[in-house]
């Protein structure tokens, strides 16, 4: 066996390509295996968002580095392509938050179990964080879940940004932006720009409608509650005694969503399970892992938390 020489922090691991589950071999993944001979019983699953054409690498190889770091800590780590992406097969689906990749996660658990793991820790972001929640809740083998900037509300994946824009900017400001020549050109030339503009306009209309509806002003806004697909599995995990860690950037709109939701019913569970759930923030924006600094912070936070719980 050739021992790989990747980052200095991860020379104690080796990456092995895998197809799973047998016999269809639908999904492709990479298992980072510690080179130490000790048999570890906790396996880690990494669940990325769906940006890019593969979900095994990530921006600046963030998931590669995270997998190798954790494997260097003595734990087998699996990262993989969702159905229809990367080297997995199957049709690409819409990857909506309401339809998380639970079949993939279950197959990943089975693969790790076939390699000797009896317990799992799941780490996810964006679409992967919803998958982590829904797919882990009720599975007695899961002993911890770490969520990096999880989307808290429901809605079409990728619309969080447009909703946020609609909330943060006034109608006049949005209209002024829309008539700028460069934006008119973008709207004319680019289908994605037209879709985004339509979503912003729809979100703004919804927001205005809520404000003008009589009797709504004083009532708690139910649209600010956490999505059932977020809240229910989170509550199930916590009531089963599974520790959950959430990490946001202070400028992430998902953090604003979380704070709004925490004022409502989600807050009751945060109080009730206070010793099991940890919520941390780091300065700036974490979502998208747009700088090497936030990538390092994320990897370090996950690494420390996993070391504590594995």
């Amino acid at each position, binding site marked *: 066996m050739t021992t790989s020489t990747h980052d200095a922090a991860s020379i104690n691991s080796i990456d092995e*390509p895998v197809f799973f589950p047998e016999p269809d071999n639908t999904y*492709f993944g990479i298992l980072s295996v510690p080179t130490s001979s000790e048999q570890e019983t906790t396996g880690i699953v990494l669940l990325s968002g769906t940006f890019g*054409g*593969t979900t095994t690498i990530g921006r600046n190889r963030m998931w590669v580095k995270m997998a190798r770091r954790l494997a260097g800590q003595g734990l087998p780590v699996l990262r993989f392509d969702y159905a229809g992406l990367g080297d997995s097969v199957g049709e690409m689906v819409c990857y909506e938050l309401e339809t998380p990749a639970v079949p993939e996660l279950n197959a990943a658990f089975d693969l790790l179990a076939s390699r000797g793991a009896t317990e799992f820790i799941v780490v996810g972001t964006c679409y992967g964080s919803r998958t982590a929640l829904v797919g882990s809740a009720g599975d007695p083998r899961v002993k911890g879940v770490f969520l990096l900037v999880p989307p808290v509300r429901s809605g079409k994946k990728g619309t969080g940004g447009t909703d946020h824009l609609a909330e943060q900017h006034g109608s006049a400001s949005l209209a002024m932006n829309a008539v700028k020549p460069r934006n008119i050109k973008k709207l004319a030339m680019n289908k994605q720009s037209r879709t985004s503009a339509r979503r912003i306009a729809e979100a703004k209309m919804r927001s205005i409608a809520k404000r003008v509806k009589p009797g709504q002003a004083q009532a708690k806004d139910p649209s600010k509650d956490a999505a059932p697909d977020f809240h229910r599995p989170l509550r199930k995990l916590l009531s089963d005694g599974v520790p959950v860690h959430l990490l946001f950037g202070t400028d992430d709109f998902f953090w604003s969503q979380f704070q709004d939701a925490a004022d409502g019913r989600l807050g009751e569970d945060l109080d009730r399970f206070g010793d099991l759930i940890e919520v941390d923030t780091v300065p700036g924006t974490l979502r998208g892992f747009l*700088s090497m600094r936030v990538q390092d912070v994320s990897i370090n936070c996950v690494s420390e938390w996993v070391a504590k719980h594995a």
Partner: protein
Amino acid sequence: MNNDPRSATRIDSQNGTTEELSYFGDAPQMFGSIHIPAGDVRAGVVICSSTHAELLKSYQLEVRAARALASRGIAVQRFHYRGDGNSDGTIAELTLPAMVEATSEATERLIDRTGIDTVAFIGVRMGAFPAVTLAQRFPGAPIVLWDPVLDTDRFMRDALRSHAIAALKGEAKPEKTNQTIERLERDGSIDLLGYEFTSGFYDSIRGRKLTDQPPVDSSVLVVPFGSTVNTDLLDIWSAEGVDVSTSEGTEREAWWLDEQATKDRQNRGTVLADLTATWISDTIDG
């Protein structure tokens, strides 16, 4: 049965093609995938990816092209350069000469594994440079270039511009392009839209023009991404005697900016894969 722990194989239940994903070469090893047709292998294609953000952007297009080619009896080798993608090594190992050397190793591997005597190359963006360099070692090798980088200085300028635009959204005052280059040379690497970009890579690509490398023995298809076909490449290479043509392009790609995986992208990938596979297949058949 393959017992190498650094290799995994799948056989497609529909068309019988084999996909063998593995780590290969000297340490640090490269991650790669060979797509082998079910029946006779008519020829082989090596896909030279781009790097950094562009590797992720074109990943699905390359997988689709590889599968389309394999279903037409053409074996395909895909791979990630050392220090990039899923390969071993660190980003410091990624330079243009290293990309050419890696492509050479990948080509040898494809020939060893399949026994082919006809090879073609697909170069994606910066991958056009190693694709064209290697094709010149295999006279007559067909080449397909997807949205090739023609001028590395312009590539760098575009990447830095995307970086500056992204920085405009933040609180810090964005640097001027020359200041960023100075910082790259001083510090050895910079954070470019969240990707580590090293001075070693920059030094290895600066001042390179694809037009300076006419593959005179090859047939070349240039696939533009976007409506603009760069006529410089076509004119200069044609004048040098290269059999170069262009196809109808696919949609423009914002190579350094994020985009979610969507059905629309998948459909575009299928069209591009079919177009590429058909041209290579026809060119090989003469």
